[in-house]
């Protein structure tokens, strides 16, 4: 598979008055054609910043360094403006405020089809097809409704339908299962699974939900403090993960007995400039970890780890 999206040495820093904070640090990532990738991490790991950087939708307070290539083209705001919707699409996290409250759903969907230069007489049918595809109940009344008349789940599906409207090569979904109860969560997971499997295009799932990541993707990348600490095939996540952070994260799941493996190493900076960023909480921490930043090293086919303690 050839690479679809390639991120090289990406650093994103937020500035606010005289303070600054790096949300993504020197990150390298390749998404191949047709790959289903999950980026897993806790809040503050920089997941959302990463997708915003890919989409070119970072706020003004963010400074961006590094390069992003899409099919060999280096992305810049002008190219991105053309690619968004057509080639790359983001399904946002906050579904409640993601549709414009003063326009009907149909009106907003139609705008997308106008962008795609689809003739007016075909638009209605296409909209209905899309709404059926995301399995919304009563798809014929949805275009006439306004966003506030829809439930959160319905809005999420409408956004998904909008994202699919131009069959983009890459879909990014930001936390689609966040805060959902089991029944709704399974509903959206199943729908996503169907849509992802039907298509040969690439899919990136941003989530903190490990089970969802395993269910929907072939590859999982774990993020901690703006860095990718481990990449491995999804099927191996539960059994073969190596990084101490991954281990701690998996152990904290209720099914694994809510174990707290993370400990606090006294006197270690929790966001160091040199050294491993996980050193402050790592139960395998050794002197080398404080002095030098580990690199992402290949340990097996399709498995990479950023850790001094893992040879």
């Amino acid at each position: 598979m050839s690479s679809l999206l390639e991120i090289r040495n990406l650093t994103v820093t937020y500035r606010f008055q005289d303070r600054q904070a790096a949300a993504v640090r020197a990150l390298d990532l390749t998404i191949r054609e047709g790959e289903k990738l999950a980026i897993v991490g806790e809040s503050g790991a920089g997941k959302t910043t990463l997708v915003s950087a890919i989409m070119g939708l970072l706020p003004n307070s963010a400074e961006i360094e590094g390069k992003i290539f899409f099919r060999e083209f280096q992305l810049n705001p002008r190219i991105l403006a053309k690619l968004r919707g057509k080639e790359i699409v983001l399904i946002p996290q906050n579904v409640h405020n993601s549709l414009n409250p003063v326009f009907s759903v149909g009106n907003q969907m139609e705008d997308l089809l106008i962008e795609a230069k689809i003739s007016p007489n075909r638009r209605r049918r296409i909209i209905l097809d899309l709404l059926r595809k995301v399995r919304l109940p009563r798809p014929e009344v949805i275009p006439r409704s306004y966003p506030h008349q829809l439930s959160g789940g319905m809005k999420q599906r409408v956004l998904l339908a909008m994202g699919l409207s131009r069959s983009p090569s890459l879909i990014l979904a930001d936390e689609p299962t966040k805060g959902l109860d089991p029944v709704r969560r399974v509903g959206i997971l199943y729908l996503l699974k169907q849509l992802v499997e039907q298509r040969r295009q690439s899919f990136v799932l941003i989530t903190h939900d490990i089970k969802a990541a395993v269910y929907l993707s072939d590859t999982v990348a774990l993020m901690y403090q703006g860095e990718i600490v481990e990449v491995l095939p999804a099927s191996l996540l539960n059994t073969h993960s190596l990084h101490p952070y991954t281990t701690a994260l998996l152990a904290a799941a209720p099914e694994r007995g809510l174990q707290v493996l993370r400990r606090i190493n006294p006197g270690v900076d929790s966001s160091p400039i040199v050294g491993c960023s996980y050193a402050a909480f790592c139960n395998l921490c050794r002197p080398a970890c404080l002095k030098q930043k580990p690199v992402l090293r290949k340990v097996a086919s399709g498995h990479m780890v950023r850790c001094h303690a893992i040879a």
Partner: protein
Amino acid sequence: MLEFRNVSKVFRQGWLKKTEIVAVKEVSLLIKPGKIFGLMGESGSGKSTLGKLALGLLTPSAGEVLWEGRLRTNLRSLPKEARLAIQGISQNPYGVFNPRHRIGYALAEPLIYHGLLKNEQERLLRIREILELVNMEEDCLRKYPSQLSGGQLQRLALARILLMNPKLIVADEPTTMLDLTTQAQIIHLLKRIHEKKGVAILFISHDLPVVTALAQRIGIMYGGRLVEVGSTQEILTNPLHPYTQLFLAAAREEVVPELQSNTNNSKGCIYYGSCYQSQELCAVKTPELIPVKREHLVACHLVNAAKNG
């Protein structure tokens, strides 16, 4: 000790209060001292409203909330101890503390207000003791809420209510906004407090694994009604209500049929529209919550019919 007797809560909205939203409908439930009760259900099932009714933040539209046999509807008429016996922690730890007060003040405020520990030395000692219990350093007392993380704030929220010596803690989705690792810490903490202090907990959540890890008994709510109550073991191994079965299957990540929006059919079973085995009776008569076994109650005509027949 905390008892809901046929409690309903209806919110009225709109012009001339014409639109009624039934959040909780005819719920009867007993929460026993020193136990952890897990209340589950989808969003909008009324579980948070029930929590607020327990805390006295809402008054029931019908029915009674009793605490140790006394009506809890009029908080002012209760003695201070009974009033403070139920305390809560909420979903959003970032909002629990007044952004303009330091943590130290926030912790001491209720003690000062109620004149519980008048001596400043004693007060500080007690606060230190509690901080140690929740694993927080003393230097947080000088900080403002905005300087602390969600996990830390949740622990401090817990510390503040522990200072009141509650007999029941209503924990309304206390970990949904927290990370996995932080969630594990808070759950452990709740468990430790429960064991050490013998305090009862009403744990409200839609996260089945978390609830089963904590609770001894579980109640399932749907559409404002309690549809099934039983011991954790019993619910996990022998769920009887069709909705409970669906909920458990979904939590195991099995593909489940999608729920129809429940039509506001006041006559029949609340789950009628989505049920895979509904009968004629279900459309016209609301099933009552009836024990099928000791300590296992279900509100379903089919289950009752099976039991009787």
